[in-house]
């Protein structure tokens, strides 16, 4: 009798368990569920979106619910801005993050290409166009394409803007706290100095391209050099410098510099302004040897599931008011005219954001390196990260 009762108990338990599991799986359903009331609309809209053909040329798609899979740098777009987009268009945004162009490229090529909008930097756009990874959605022809700044129209990596739309642009310089480190840092050579006053509390981006660009500059060479001698010097420089480096991580720089966890960090200028807001002691350096002027862009990868929504999003982000709000959050200037009206006064006056005249010549874009140079970068970076 007892055994029978126990068997029943466990049987019931098992049934409940399995039922619960089935119920949960059913909740998951086909599409990933976003928040709020748009989920019901999203499921049905996503179905119809997939079935209907591409909007005819010349007709810009109108928002019809559905989803958008956005792949962006970590902490590089305002959550409130996305919420506003969601409520204005009814499109649910799913945001995933990456910490470097190479990480994004690796994920995309491995088959994660079901993102709808990605945010590659200038040289990466060029590389991806060459590899046939981007769709020619022609942002310049979008309704808001008229707002693209003239100097951002015929860029080296995408003349005429047939693949990408401008997002933010900025520089990668040095952020440091003079009250903690003492002394004055004005060059990459000082940053990479093995006897730097900040040694032990130095941080750097986990970005092969940025670090080695800077290291080449510090040793008097040019980024993307194909001269092996230059790299020998770079290796020596990095080897001497490494013991003083506490952290190699592109994520979380703002928090670490704001809290004083590190006192010197290779940093993007916009991220710097956000850290500076919390810690006014911080200073941004335009090193004497020159810095990279990069620009980030929106693009639609081949294989995107929601191309119409991607176009709607990119168009929306080219609206001066919207990108102005984005700028105020991330702290960079952008490639859209008229957005400066929406920029906060502080940001507009910050020398880290709007490059002062005396430093303008130092900030130059760096197109992607040749395959040969990339090989050398790879070697040096691998040894550095050992």
């Amino acid at each position, binding site marked *: 009798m007892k055994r029978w009762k126990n068997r029943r108990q466990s049987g019931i338990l098992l049934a409940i368990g399995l039922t619960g*599991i089935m119920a949960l799986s059913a909740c998951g359903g086909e599409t990933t569920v976003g928040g709020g009331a748009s989920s019901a609309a999203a499921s049905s809209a996503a179905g119809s979106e997939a079935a209907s053909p591409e909007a005819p040329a010349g007709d810009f798609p109108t928002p019809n619910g559905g989803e958008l899979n956005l792949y962006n740098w970590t902490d590089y777009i305002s959550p409130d801005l996305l919420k506003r987009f969601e409520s204005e268009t009814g499109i649910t945004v799913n945001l995933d993050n990456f910490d470097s162009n190479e990480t994004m490229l690796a994920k995309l090529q491995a088959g994660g290409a079901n993102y709808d909008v990605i945010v590659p930097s200038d040289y990466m756009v060029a590389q991806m166009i060459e590899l046939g990874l981007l769709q020619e959605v022609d942002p310049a022809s979008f309704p808001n394409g008229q707002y693209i700044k003239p100097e951002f129209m015929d860029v080296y990596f995408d003349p005429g803007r047939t693949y990408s739309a401008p997002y933010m642009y900025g520089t990668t310089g040095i952020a440091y706290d003079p009250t903690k480190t003492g002394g004055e840092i004005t060059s990459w050579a000082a940053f990479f100095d093995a006897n730097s006053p900040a040694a032990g509390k130095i941080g750097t981006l986990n970005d092969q391209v940025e670090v080695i660009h800077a290291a080449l500059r510090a040793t008097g060479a040019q980024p993307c050099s194909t001269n092996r001698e230059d790299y020998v010097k770079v290796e020596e420089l990095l080897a001497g410098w490494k013991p003083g480096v506490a952290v190699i991580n592109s994520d979380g720089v703002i*928090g670490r510099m704001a809290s004083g966890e590190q006192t010197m960090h290779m940093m993007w200028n916009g991220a710097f302004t956000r850290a500076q807001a919390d810690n006014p002691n911080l200073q941004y350096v335009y090193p004497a040897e020159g810095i990279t002027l990069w620009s980030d862009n929106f693009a639609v990868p081949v294989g995107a*599931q929601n191309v119409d929504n991607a176009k709607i999003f990119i168009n929306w982000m080219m609206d001066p008011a919207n990108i102005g709000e984005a700028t105020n959050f991330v702290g960079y200037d952008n490639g859209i005219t008229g957005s400066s009206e929406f920029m906060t006064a502080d940001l507009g006056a910050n020398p880290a954001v709007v490059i002062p005249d005396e430093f303008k010549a130092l900030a130059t874009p760096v197109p992607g390196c040749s395959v040969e140079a990339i090989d050398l970068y790879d070697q040096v970076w691998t040894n550095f990260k050992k």
Partner: protein
Amino acid sequence: MKSPRGTGTSLKNFPLFGPVAAIVFGFLYIPLVFVVGYSFNSNRVVTVWKGFSLEWYADVLTNDDIQRAVINSLRVASISTVLSVIFATGLAIGLLRMARAGKTAAWSLIMAPLVIPEIVFAIGTLALFVQIRFPLGVDAITLAHTAFCIPFALLPIRARLRSVDLTVYEAAADLGANEWVIFRRITLPLLAPGIVAGALLAFIISLDDFIVSYFLAGAGGTTLPVYIFGMIRNAITPGVNALSTLLLLVSVVIVTVSYIIARRRR
């Protein structure tokens, strides 16, 4: 062999073992206490206590991306659990009847996910899916999780199966029942506690997994541990602690339930 001093209480205490044991217990739990404790910190900087607050829990629970990650995790864990338990039950029964050579090979295959460093398994499945052009994402993660949940589900089921008195089968067979009926009405109910235990284990293992999910994640396919990892690398706020505490809670509840069931069985 009785000690002249009585029923053997004289050697219960080796020098220092008690205190060291207490310290080790503390070591096991105190870090988790910190994680939970700081989740109530109203200060942005996790380790500098400013006051008690539940705001991080509110933050975390209303965050869309986190909700999506939680749902992904639950979905993956549920399906992996069901599948791995089904496979494991079959394996438990099959193993009992396998010839020696086949058995060793089968065991090696089954235990492989436990022995191989997880990173190798993660990149191996990544390579596999890329080769056959299977899209990365929640489904890929589910398939991979099922595979390494199988050994975890198997062990309790197998232990249960081996404790079954074989005469029960003979009796049933003698009474005219066929294989399938015997399986349904005798084997399965007898195995039930083992299956439940195996299912609970598989569920936690899948829920907590990081590295495989990290490599196989695709658009919108982030699971909770992957999301937490991103948070840790980006900005350490008590929000991370709040999320971690919730995940801890789920794991502890499941383990406790499993334990209670196991105790009832003995």
